[in-house]
């Protein structure tokens, strides 16, 4: 019975959580945090159930309000959308559990609005993932974007400036997407993705289609922070409150990458993609992004800023995988969406822990003292860093491995070189920190290091993500076989 409503369930849970937030705030100061954790937990359960149900029984299509598509809005739970929904749910759950101390410390005033915005962001993102309608996607995109401007802009006034700059670029991106959808509507007369695909198969390529495709890609490129359109990202991530970054960095840009996958492989006519060499362009931009992000991360003195530039590079990997357009490339891209979400979530929560302990997040301020005071956090940072560099058996190795296989298969030697060079650059900038933590000098830590309250909530989620990186690495074949291969949009 409940299975037929699965596509809407994840989205509605988050929105219900957002609505409950003001009521929860009346009860107790910490009730919003608990509501947020419970909401994310319920949504994760729904997403996992949807993933398993879809894997067993096939795609579930849901007509909103009983209006049949293509007239009404359709939500679709298929292997790809449920997989991304599970990643989103799990990550949000872990970050929300971790968020109690950072939010109480960094956000002035009641935490109600902060958590309500976080729930709206997650509802918007899961809506983007689940929807099967082009205009509905725009609405969810704007819901999640508005919430993310608020989340990134609270905290310091410096954060508001960078959030405002992001708002300008983000609105531009969403508007470009809307123009593209307009052209597509004029061209086909439909907004339902499956319907548009069917109409394109009949009518073929028109000049309007080309315009639509270009506008939509530029818009999504801004949202995804694909190379020439990434300027908003480093500032926005650096100055935002720790929890906002930990929530938005792992899943925000990935959802835009998901939209790109969905539209490129399923909606846009194959002719248009071939005609415009879209896949080659995206792969090339991804490759340049990988190198540029890694090089820019090298001289950074602030850990958060370094991680932000590394995010630009990691988005490049996903774009490269999408652009290869082969089975291995696709597996690499999807696996990297999952792996990078776990790695970046772990790393940004580590920076939050450093701030919670009153440590700076400047790299030259780190000493070996840190390892003695915060052994678990330091160890998790090291695991995540090793995974970012891509050493087996951590998760990061395997997504890079599939990307290498894909490049090799296509004979794109330059991409193989790009991935290897970027791994070396990753090693350089992460070992700068690891070296300071483990080999650097520093006095013995005072015997009774004052431990702030709620330490378990700070360490537990970081540890969970750190261990998951090894588990994901070891179990990558299971994930690929059971979940990623069924979502392949083309024959392997």
């Amino acid at each position, binding site marked *: 019975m409940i299975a037929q409503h699965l596509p809407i369930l994840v989205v509605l849970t988050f929105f219900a959580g957002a609505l409950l937030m003001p009521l929860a705030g009346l009860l107790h100061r910490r009730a919003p945090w608990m509501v947020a954790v419970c909401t994310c937990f319920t949504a994760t359960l729904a997403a996992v159930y949807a993933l398993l149900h879809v894997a067993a029984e096939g795609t579930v299509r849901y007509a909103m309000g009983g209006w049949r598509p293509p007239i009404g809005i359709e939500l679709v739970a298929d292997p790809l959308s449920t997989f991304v929904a599970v990643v989103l749910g799990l990550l949000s759950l872990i970050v929300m559990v971790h968020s109690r101390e950072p939010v109480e410390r960094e956000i002035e005033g009641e935490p109600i609005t902060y958590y309500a915005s976080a729930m709206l962001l997650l509802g918007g993102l899961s809506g983007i993932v689940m929807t099967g309608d082009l205009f509905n996607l725009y609405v969810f995109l*704007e819901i999640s974007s508005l919430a993310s401007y608020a989340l990134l802009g609270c905290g310091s006034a410096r954060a*508001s400036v960078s959030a405002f700059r992001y708002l*300008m670029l983000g609105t531009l991106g969403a*508007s470009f997407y809307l123009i593209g959808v*307009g052209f597509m509507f004029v061209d086909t007369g439909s907004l339902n993705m499956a319907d548009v695909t069917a109409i394109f198969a009949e009518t073929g390529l028109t000049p309007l289609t080309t315009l639509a495709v270009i506008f939509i890609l530029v818009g999504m490129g801004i949202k995804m922070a694909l190379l020439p359109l990434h300027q908003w990202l480093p500032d926005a991530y650096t100055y935002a409150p720790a929890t906002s970054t930990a929530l938005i960095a792992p899943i925000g840009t990935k959802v835009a990458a998901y939209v790109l996958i969905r539209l490129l492989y399923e909606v846009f006519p194959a002719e248009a993609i071939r005609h415009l060499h879209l896949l080659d362009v995206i792969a090339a931009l991804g490759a340049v992004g990988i190198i540029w992000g890694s090089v820019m991360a090298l001289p950074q003195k602030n850990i958060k800023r370094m991680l932000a530039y590394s995010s630009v590079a990691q988005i490049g990997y996903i774009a490269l995988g999408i652009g290869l357009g082969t089975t291995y490339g696709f597996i690499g891209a999807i696996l990297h969406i999952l792996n990078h979400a776990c790695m970046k979530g772990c790393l940004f929560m580590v920076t939050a822990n450093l701030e919670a302990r009153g440590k700076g997040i400047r790299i030259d301020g780190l000493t070996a003292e840190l390892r003695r005071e915060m052994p678990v956090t330091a160890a998790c940072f090291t695991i995540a860093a090793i995974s970012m560099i891509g050493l087996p058996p951590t998760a990061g190795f395997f997504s890079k491995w599939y990307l290498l296989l894909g490049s090799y298969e296509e004979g794109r030697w330059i991409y193989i070189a790009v991935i290897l060079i970027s791994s070396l650059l990753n090693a350089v900038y992460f070992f700068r920190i690891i070296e300071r933590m483990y080999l650097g000098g520093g006095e013995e830590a005072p015997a009774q290091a004052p431990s702030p309250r709620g330490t378990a909530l700070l360490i537990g989620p970081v540890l969970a993500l750190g261990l998951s990186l090894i588990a994901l690495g070891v179990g990558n074949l299971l994930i690929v076989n059971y979940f990623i291969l069924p979502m392949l949009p083309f024959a392997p």
Partner: protein
Amino acid sequence: MLELFHDYGAYWMCFLILTIGLYGMLVKKNYIKKVIGMTIFQAAIILFFIIAGYKEFATVPVRDPGLSTENVDAYINPLPHALMLTAIVVGVATVGVALSLLIRVYARYGTLDEDALEDKMQ
């Protein structure tokens, strides 16, 4: 060539407004002017959709007993209007968030000029 301008006059006008908005968003140094540019830009997109739904000699999309429902050419396409209602709401919300961010920025730095702000943040 002239027909291209004549037949698609409304679209050219819409394109012009779009460009003015884009210019304001990207080139203007004052943040309030950037927000104004953004509003113009969004208005142009709304116009674009409305123009796309327009048909000559057609009436409003309310069922008219005097007209047969068979002839859809007698009615304007209502879907773009419905979509743009949503887009207008989104636009208002965006302006609201933008202005509230700017209030915080102005309270802290006392200016909304990009160059002056850049100096103060150093």
